[in-house]
């Protein structure tokens, strides 16, 4: 934000930003060209209601997503809601689509979904610099699942209070993301809000509301958003990973190959692969193995293999299987909230066990 100097228009912008929402019927020379109502209406078109798994105590079966490409890409927060074969995506105008999970960026806990539709609205990536504390924002989200069908998502107003690293060590829930987030002064991060859009008063996308986080020490619920540049990076990394990942037709063939590689050859035992998307937690590490030498430990969560993000046990298996014998294997893991790199050395040949 600019500071108010002698220039009338600059001070006007400044005042407008600070007090603009107070303005009732008065015209401010440098006021935004659109009204808050128009900004909200425009932004809300690009915010979708997502419905998936959950509904049991404490776990909502709904959250929010942001349309970021006319091709139907939706970014949202990676959560248990997406642990479903059927994810429903409902647009502002009531159109309902079945969404496909393209992939996840486990570091930012961001997921990208895809819907097949026509004339889809979307936010554009505007390469905006980080906004400063004091910036007035709107948060649009499917909080409490209040809005259904063609009802518009809920809109709250607030101010960016700070831009600070997300300190997860004090939180009850671990967040692998260590970068900056926008702290907001309003109660934006409610049940169902995760994946909601934070926009400025011109309707430009500034960030994505994160999952609910509560500090165990103070009981404080955090109201925060992942800045849009991080959202875009997460989105791009998922798409990049998606580019090399198997097409559905090739998947079955790859599966048969993949299952022939046993991670135990590296000395790693993962938790049993029970769900569609079992997170790749390390169950144990064989002493004396390459994994042990690399410093891999029990309870580490693998988030990337050779720089390609993975979110499931199967994902790890696929990438390991794709590598050629002798390729170097590098695990990126989350351990107690920190990112740790573990080089496991060359990949052994596929198991020949029957």
């Amino acid at each position, binding site marked *: 934000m600019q500071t108010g100097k002698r220039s009338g228009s600059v001070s006007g912008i400044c005042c407008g930003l600070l007090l603009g929402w107070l303005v009732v019927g008065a015209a401010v020379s440098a006021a935004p060209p659109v009204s808050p109502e128009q900004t909200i209406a425009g932004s809300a078109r690009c915010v979708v209601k997502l419905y998936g798994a959950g509904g049991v105590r404490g776990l909502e079966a709904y959250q929010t997503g942001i349309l970021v490409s006319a091709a139907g890409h939706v970014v949202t927060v990676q959560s248990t809601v997406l642990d479903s074969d059927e994810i429903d995506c409902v647009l502002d105008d009531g159109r309902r689509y079945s969404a496909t999970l393209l992939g996840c960026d486990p570091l930012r806990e961001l997921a990208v979904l895809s819907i097949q539709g026509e004339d889809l609205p979307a936010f554009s990536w505007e390469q905006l610099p980080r906004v400063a504390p004091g910036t007035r924002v709107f948060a649009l989200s499917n909080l409490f699942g209040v809005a259904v*069908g063609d009802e518009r998502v809920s809109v709250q107003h607030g101010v960016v*209070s700070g831009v600070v690293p997300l300190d997860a060590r004090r939180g009850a829930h671990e967040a692998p993301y260590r970068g900056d987030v926008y702290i907001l002064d309003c109660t934006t991060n409610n049940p169902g809000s995760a994946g909601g859009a934070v926009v400025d008063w011109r309707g430009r996308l500034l960030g994505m509301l994160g999952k609910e986080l509560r500090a165990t020490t103070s*009981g404080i619920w955090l109201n925060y958003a992942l800045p849009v540049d991080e959202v875009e990076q997460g989105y791009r990394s998922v798409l990049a990973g998606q580019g090399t990942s198997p097409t559905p037709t090739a998947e079955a063939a790859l599966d048969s190959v993949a299952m022939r590689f046993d991670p135990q050859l590296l000395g790693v035992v993962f938790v049993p692969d029970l769900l569609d998307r079992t997170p790749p937690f390390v169950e144990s590490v064989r002493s004396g193995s390459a994994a042990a030498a690399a410093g891999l430990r029990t309870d580490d969560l693998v988030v990337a293999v050779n720089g390609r993000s993975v979110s499931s046990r199967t994902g790890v298996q696929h990438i390991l299987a794709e590598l050629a014998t002798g390729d170097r294997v590098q695990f990126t893991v989350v351990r107690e909230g920190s990112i740790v790199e573990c080089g496991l050395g060359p990949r052994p040949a596929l198991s020949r066990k029957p």
Partner: protein
Amino acid sequence: MKQTIAQRSRPRGVLRLLWCAPACISGWLLVISAAFAEPAGPPANGADVAPEVLAAQQQRIEVIARASQAAVAIFAGEAGGGSGVLISADGYALTNFHVVQPAGVAMQCGLADGRQYEAVLVGLDPTGDVALIKLLGRDDFPYAALADSDTVEVGDFCFAAGNPFLLATDFHPSISAGIVSGVHRYQFPAGTILEYADCLQVDAAINPGNSGGALFDAQGRIIGVNGRASFEKRGRVNVGVGYAISANQLRHFLGCLKGGRLVDHATLGATAATAEDGRVVVSDILDSSDAYRRGLRYDDEIVSIAGRTVRTVNALKNVLGTLPAGWRVPLVYRRQGRRYEILVRLAGVHSAAELASIVAGENSKQTRRPRPGPPAAPQPAEEKPEPPAHPAPNQLSAAVKEVYEARPGFTNYHFNTVELSRVARSVAAGHADPGRGTWVMAGHLGSGEPFRIELADSRATIDLPTGTTSVDASGDLDANPSPPGSGGMLAALIVWRRLVLEGPTALGRTSYWGTAPLDPAALISGAEPVLIDVLETAVAAVETRVSVTPSGAVAAIDLWTAPDADPCELTFAQALPISGIPAGWPARIEARHGDRLFGVFHIEAASVQAAAPQADSPADSAGEVPRPVEAPGET
């Protein structure tokens, strides 16, 4: 989990605990803001601020100051309290059912002027969580106007004025500002009461104690009454998600509430579900419902109701939830590609006995006390002896006793007599004194054929091209619907004459019903209805509703000769003063019964003949069965 938000008591310890969390958050954020704010902050003095901004802020301060004058702090003694808002100079104030319910008939209220006023309960709408009270002792109370809440947009500035945590010990309301977060929201009821339909969602802080207080727009007009908020795992404190009952819903019920009645909400007598293709279709329908009699059937697609397009089941519930039982509204449905438009009389959600027991019997559930810290929801009813909910009449103050009268079916019958007298005065003023002679109206039907109606103390007679029908008009109304096919047109005309000559109390057991749309069919445009007074009367088995315009003329009479049957419906079009027709009399009467138009009576000559006894009334032709005089569809 959504909860209503009356403040139930105010032990200091609890207050502090409730305040603890928000204080921590804001303190923490302050530190963050201070640490990361840019060195150059906002202009340090007003000189650098654009004059438009200063003017706007000054205007806002004035609007809030004015609105604060209309805010009411309600104290229900041990049971807690909440907020309210004055809507008229003579002291009528709106609040929540769940705020006044523990207080009973009388309560203490404080205004921003620092003075305390006694208030009496007027009307209750438990289903919609609305109560109307009247503050006593002044006729020049400050008040706020009700806005058209359908014009409210998401993003509009709004503010709440109320009594959160019962902080207003000097009665000056707390103000919290925000924006409208959502419109036309549906919030499920608790059982069959406290349903928030078509409500406004706001991010202004709505806390326990804000219940019943107004949500104002930027001009200081009431756009809603705050009543509940989404509370989940964070305790019973604001999470930026509050709900307000819309001003338009309040306006729909205001007339009924002013009549001191226990008001019920409307039901279609049918349920709807979303079909696979997204259409909203009838999933069940009672064959005793008016909607069924008008033709609605299972699996019909509901297109619109009361002029509002129905795209989701919530949308249907939203419309119905804002309407009082007894209103008629247009319903559009589609079957096999064909579109049908019908007018439907809406029944009540509850029986009278059910409503009464809700008001009397829910005390144990309602008198919950706030508990420290999360999780505050859901709160089970405490096993405590019920506090004396309603003070015995002899405990009421003299001022309250003067304006309170208990009667079954009414929350405060006194106010029904007030409204009834008002309408009676209006009817008397709206009609030239016609005298007790025989009222004669003659003219032609829509078909061009002549008709003649004679109404005397002893007999009522109608001459139609198909024959003459005459009924005894001296005693109780005849339960035989005469003339045949009309559903009881003559009885309805007798009611009209008695009302004009003798006033509403002469009709039988008469009460003020409330207000209903002047022209239900006009609701199809989606515009807010023009509401007029409705009286309700019962003579023997015959029940009648008479609609009266603000000028005192009768606009419509609906008469039932049997419950659950279609009534005879007369609509009166008013005569111009120059027409030669006595003031207040109609120039045209349209008679309908069920789906059929019985006739349109264009009155060309109307007079009152001297009260001399008729030598011979026309032959009683009750045995004759005239056919309906006109084909349905003609208007």
